[in-house]
């Protein structure tokens, strides 16, 4: 195939020094790209039993797998370090007013509005639907705490014993007082009487929209004044 240009007949194409540039997908880069292309898709494989044992042998006590103790979470984390990341990301949003801890910032936000915001209460008093459904993405708003509760049970299969806002534990005197009070006002909350949940039964009920297999009393939000006092252990399912 003859490719003749006038120029080449007339004049020799002298050596000229110039920069040569290639496109990203030029064949010039083909061999360099080859190994990369092989990695374009990667399969996530299981480790074999042998490898599992090898890995376990290499591990020390502190690096054993842990289950997140937050009831309803139960995430399996590779090690304490990973667990901490998980916990920080997932379960630490705490209220600056009452120190309750929530598993997501959204829920924290809802708590703050409902428990500490008088503007919120004012709107409620005027009949606005202010109580948001706890399930992100649902978008429903109800006019009262109780009706929101019902909505969760009816629409989202929450257990009937679910309580978004559990009161803090008062002093012994206060407790006795409350016991008498509670008999009279069953289920009514007042933002003054606070119950603190025992840390061991930390919950994140919302992340686990399940039915009756959940623990019989799920409460939501607790006072976290002491930080990590518990030791991670398996979740009781």
């Amino acid at each position: 195939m003859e490719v003749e240009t006038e120029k080449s007949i007339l004049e020799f194409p002298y050596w000229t020094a110039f920069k040569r540039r290639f496109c990203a997908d030029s064949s010039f880069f083909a061999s360099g790209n080859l190994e990369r292309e092989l990695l374009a898709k990667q399969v996530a494989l299981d480790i074999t039993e042998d490898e599992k044992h090898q890995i376990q042998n290499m591990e020390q006590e502190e690096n054993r797998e842990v289950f997140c103790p937050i009831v309803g979470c139960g995430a399996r984390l590779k090690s304490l370090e990973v667990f901490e990341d998980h916990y920080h990301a997932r379960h630490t949003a705490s209220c600056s007013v009452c120190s309750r801890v929530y598993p997501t910032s959204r829920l924290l936000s809802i708590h703050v509005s409902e428990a500490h915001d008088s503007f919120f209460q004012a709107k409620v008093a005027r009949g606005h639907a202010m109580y948001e459904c706890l399930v992100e993405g649902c978008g429903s708003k109800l006019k009262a705490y109780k009706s929101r509760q019902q909505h969760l049970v009816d629409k989202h299969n929450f257990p009937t014993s679910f309580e978004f806002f559990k009161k803090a534990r008062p002093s012994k005197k206060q407790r006795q007082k409350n016991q008498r009070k509670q008999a009279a006002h069953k289920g009514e909350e007042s933002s003054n009487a606070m119950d603190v949940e025992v840390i061991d039964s930390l919950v994140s009920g919302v992340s686990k929209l399940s039915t009756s297999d959940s623990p019989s009393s799920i409460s939501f939000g607790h006072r976290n004044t002491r930080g990590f006092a518990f030791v991670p252990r398996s979740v009781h399912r």
Partner: protein
Amino acid sequence: MSDDTVVSHRRDPIQSSVGSVAANRRRQQAVTIAKERREALVRTKRLCRVGTSGDGNGDGDGDMMIDEERSILEAQTSSAVEELKSAVAYQGKGVMQKRVNALRELRRILSRSEFPPVEAALKAGAVPLLVQCLSFGSPDEQLLEAAWCLTNIAAGKPEETKSLLPALPLLIAHLGEKSSLPVAEQCAWALGNVAGEGEELRNVLLSQGALLPLARMMLPNKGSTVRTAAWALSNLIKGPSPKAATELIKIDGVLDAVLQHLRKADEELATEIAWVIVYLSALSNTATNILVQSDLLQLLVERLATSNSLQLLIPVLRTLGNLVAGETQATPVVLVAGNEIAGNDFSDNVISALIKCLKSEHRVLKKESAWVLSNMAAGSVELKRLIFSSEAIPVLLQLLSTAPIDIKKEVAYVLGNLSVTSTEGREKPNLILDNLVSLVGRGCLPGFIDLVKSVDTEAARLGLQFIELVLRGMPNGEGPKLVRREDGIDAMERFQFHENGELRNMANGLVDKDLNIKSSS
């Protein structure tokens, strides 16, 4: 190290504190995950789709399976999907556990070998079920298993990867900053597989907003999540459209994160980051402009000089090459460096690092480093001088005689560029006589004449061009003598009846010239 995320502060600011004293204590106590262990896990998880040598897995590759085994596996797959179907539909007691178990079973089947039974899974209707399992509010374990299944489905053939389309928005959503890291990572992995499939799917992902959350996952953080995110991101921005690359560099924090990882990260993470940078620099002028103004170059040269990992060196070298090749007055890379005393140090470092690559045993490194040198040799007089006086020349001469043809060509470019002044191609360049004489004196001519004999057109062209320089430039009319001595005439005469017109004319012209000169000596 803070994982604090910013949430819209509607009311009170959010504290995130979990007794930092206790946490620190645990951190001190906790043994850092042994690198070997991590690598063992990661290596196993990341076997290439195109089989590597067996990993001791009993089931082996799908290819090697006999038909009977294959159909058993397919039957298992179908029944696992059926099980999942009923688990998803189930409403009663223990539903969460049931779902996770079904997912896990399917995931195991899809993870046993390098060639999972994807087709069977798809035929049984796995994807819609998996999509349901990704719904918001699902427990982490469920999300993880579902994303894992989807990851391996997406690692299959193109049509199989495409089947993930309904799952994409959810996978993207679970990249969010409040997702647990393993879930986010697994989703990134799946998305990386999808993006790696091709341009079409890449565009879908981009239009669905995958870029931003993935970019955020690359910000300095602990763990393997960053690496997976970087890998997925590199697949997402690889073009050919420059849009994604341009968008990426503009995202807040990305430039700093990329540089920091390139500076400090282990080689595996640095490799993924380096590929991101390759695409940024190759595709987007905006990105290139931003990158050259940072200390990227020093970081590249450092990595080039200190690393021995081929996987890392390739993209680092590639980026350097792209930047040097695209260099202009406005975006100086090594140009400026060759002009100042202080700058010479940098150029020296670059050249040393490139020499290291030239000496490597890896073909790609030799070829591409020679390419970079050739572009530098097309630069200023200073740069030429620096290269010429460095250790590069002996190495290049060696390569010219012994290396494969593609490397030889690059070397030829270097030597030829060193022998002429750099013009912008408008005028006929002048010879740099000292260099030419030196090179010829050191025995480069036979190598060029060999090129003339090559079947490769480009190689032949280069050879002829260099011979012309020799004929023209060698003092005392030595040129023709030297050429003849190395059987140059013979080589050129092969083109007398060559089908390539240009080469024919070139060769004939030289031979004529030579004969003319000969008559006068």
